């Protein structure tokens, strides 16, 4: 088995560095060559070339803004010896403690090392984890990755979207809120407000829980709900509908086909994510654009969907797919196949703002989510209190882009002190009428 000796990556061009043998062969007959199960030596810290920035600390904060919540925020702060700091988000519903611990587990990958090597660190965190992917590792990497991008943008004195090739549209990033309306009248009010504010898209859901085969009543209720959305919001507003992976392909296909005349913008997660072929049973039988991706980790997990032409829209979430580094790759991979991105964002302000940078630089981006209503509520006011501007609130239907370096916002540890971590509860557990496990 050939092994490459790793030689420090902090060295810039021109410096030959220690020239370790390119193909170091393990000693003949040694056990470690056969199975790699002999304990590996901890590699020495990366030798930093003179003048390179160094990470001095990495802190992770659990932030509780609402009692007994399944979704306290997890923020990552990285500090450097030049005083430049970066913030990232690693929020994962129901798993805050596990993610915070995973960020701590990754400490040695980052602290003492060069923060500018964002791709290199991503590769190491993901590949050297050995057990790849999974949302807990993905979210921890995401938080660290976003913070490193914040730093590199500040060091290079560029907003992150400029480092990614944007902005494509100087108006900003087109977005949608959640309709959060239960009746036709409420929907009409949402529409009226939207028209005043220049908002052009909304998302809503389907009611209740679904078994793998469903009743006539249940299917009629779902279809009626979607018809009401179109009636209330009007023909000139784009409508996304989130099935939240509640339905089987069998049930989803029936509903999708029946609502084709509504010309929805997309139907999201029409079935659970593990089985790409199952999703193809839906998309192959309807003209409604199908969207999925919020639970996918790393670009690898999007390959099959793109390769097989299964979905129209990928909705990876920056806080889980693996930060800016990973989300950009998803967009780049999707582009040649005519697949668009409409990233999911249902957590805190940091990840949402970070997503805008990727959106603004991705030609095949279509629309950005924020899990907020058209009227700002407590959470939105809190974000404005922390960041000093109405984060993730649209202007004329577009999220504005900051022209400040890095991710474009400042956040102080002090402002988070009022919201200490109070643990997490699991996500909602729902059950069918007969007591068996359901999905919401």
């Amino acid at each position, binding site marked *: 088995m050939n092994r490459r000796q790793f030689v420090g990556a902090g060295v810039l061009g021109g410096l030959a560095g220690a020239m370790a043998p390119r193909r170091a062969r393990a000693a003949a007959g040694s056990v470690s060559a056969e199975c790699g199960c002999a304990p590996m030596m901890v590699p020495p810290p990366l030798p930093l070339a003179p003048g390179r920035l160094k990470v001095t600390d990495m802190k992770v904060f659990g932030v509780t803004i609402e009692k007994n919540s399944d979704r306290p925020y997890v923020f990552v702060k990285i500090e450097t010896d030049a005083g430049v700091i970066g913030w990232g988000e690693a929020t994962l519903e129901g798993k805050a403690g596990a993610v915070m611990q995973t960020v701590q587990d990754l400490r040695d990958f980052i602290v003492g090392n060069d923060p500018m090597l964002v791709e290199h660190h991503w590769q190491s965190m993901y590949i050297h984890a050995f057990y790849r992917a999974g949302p807990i590792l993905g979210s921890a990497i995401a938080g660290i990755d976003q913070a490193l991008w914040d730093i590199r943008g500040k060091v290079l004195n560029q907003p992150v979207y400029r480092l990614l090739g944007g902005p494509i549209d100087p108006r900003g990033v087109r977005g949608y809120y959640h309709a959060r309306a239960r009746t036709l009248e409420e929907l009409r009010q949402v529409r009226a407000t939207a028209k005043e504010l220049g908002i052009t898209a909304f998302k809503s859901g389907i009611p209740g829980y679904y078994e793998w085969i469903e009743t006539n009543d249940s299917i009629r209720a779902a279809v009626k709900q979607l018809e009401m959305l179109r009636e209330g919001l009007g023909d000139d507003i784009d409508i996304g509908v989130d099935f939240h992976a509640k339905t089987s392909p069998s049930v989803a296909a029936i509903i999708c086909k029946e609502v084709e005349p509504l010309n929805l913008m997309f139907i999201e997660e029409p079935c659970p994510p593990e089985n790409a072929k199952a999703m193809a049973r839906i998309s192959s039988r309807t003209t409604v654009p199908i969207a999925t991706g919020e639970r996918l980790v790393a670009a690898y997990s999007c390959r099959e969907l793109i*390769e097989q032409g299964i979905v129209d829209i990928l909705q990876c979430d920056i806080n889980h797919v693996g930060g800016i580094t990973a989300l950009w790759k998803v967009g*780049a991979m999707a582009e040649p196949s005519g697949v668009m991105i409409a990233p999911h964002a249902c957590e805190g302000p940091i990840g949402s703002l970070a997503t805008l940078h990727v959106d603004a630089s991705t030609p095949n981006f279509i629309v950005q989510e924020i899990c907020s209503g058209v009227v700002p509520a407590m959470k939105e006011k809190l974000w404005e209190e922390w960041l000093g501007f109405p984060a993730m609130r649209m202007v004329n239907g577009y999220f504005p882009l900051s022209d400040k370096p890095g991710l474009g916002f400042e956040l102080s540890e002090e402002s988070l002190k009022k919201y200490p971590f109070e643990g997490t509860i699991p996500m909602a557990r729902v059950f069918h009428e007969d007591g068996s496990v359901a999905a919401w």
Partner: protein
Amino acid sequence: MAQHSRSRLTSKRSRLAALAARPAPNTQKPQVAITDVTTAPVQEPAGGRTYVIVQVKTDAGVTGVGETTSSQPRLLVQRVDAIKPRLMGQDAVSIEAARRLIAQSGGSIAEQAPIQAAINMALLDILGKLSKAPVYEALRGATRQKARAFAHLHGSEESSLRASLQRAKAAGYRAFQVPLKMPDGPTRGRSFYTETYALLEKLRTAAGDGTDFVLDCGAQLSAAEAAGLAIAFERFHLLWLEEPTAEINGGAFRKISAESVTPVGYGRNIADNAGFQDLLRMDSIDILRPDVARSGVSEVRKAASLAETYYVAIAPFHRGGPIGTAAALHAAASLPNFFIQEIPLPADDRDVAMRRELAGVDLEKPQDGFLPLPAGHGLGITLNEDALRKYALRS
């Protein structure tokens, strides 16, 4: 009913007001704007290699340089001149906005690709200079400290190939691309396979231990011939078999990969990453070879992102000049799945000197098979305007 009409009228007015309030696209003045785009075709004195240097000037006093190749350089110059008005006054840093502008200018993807590539390099050069960092740093930071390289050898029979090999070896390369020699006669028979194999073995012996080879078929083979050649070379352990067949027949690609474990590379004629997605989708490619003069740095990076999910590396094709080398090295240094960079071996020392003179730096001196990364801000090139005139392509 009246209530319905009223709310309709109100909402229609609100909608019109909202539309008016929305800024029209591209009316905001960019922070750094493009003020000129110039082209200069040049030619190497000894070997005649031709490429076109493109410069993008800005109102920030920073100029970016890019490069592309073309079999019709004068036509390329005309095309750039025709596209130039679209770019004037536009954002000099937004790679993707510029890409869209050029794409809207008309012409096929193949026609636009060389211009897209050169402009992309120039805009990244500007981004790096404005950020006071090498392009690879601005993109993602270094993923490696040096880049493996191979030299494309010249010659059509053993003696000239040996001479070319010795020159490349003396220059510091440890990997070499051998152009496949097609037999003169109509039959290709057994001797085609045995003689090609024997030639590569002789070259390997001449190159010495620790060296590697790519066999460049130049798309000259049929599907079955290519499959046969791939099988014949399975134990030789070529790095890969390059461009075995023309990219017009998906069945051909599938056949070669299905019959043999010899890795296969394609890309010099793929101007759109959709071509790479198709090859990957068909399990028909082992290493992506996008031409840096067609894809530029950004599209090479996107192709690499796609390939990464298939556990496939990239090795950009490059038969141009030293600015193309710089661009390729910055892509390599910012990618996790770069494997090796093709460097066109200059015909002789005059051409080596010309490339160094033009770029203001020698980026093509491998040490034990690896090239150091470019230093300095942007691409790390200090373009020599006198050299543009001195080596200008003569009709």
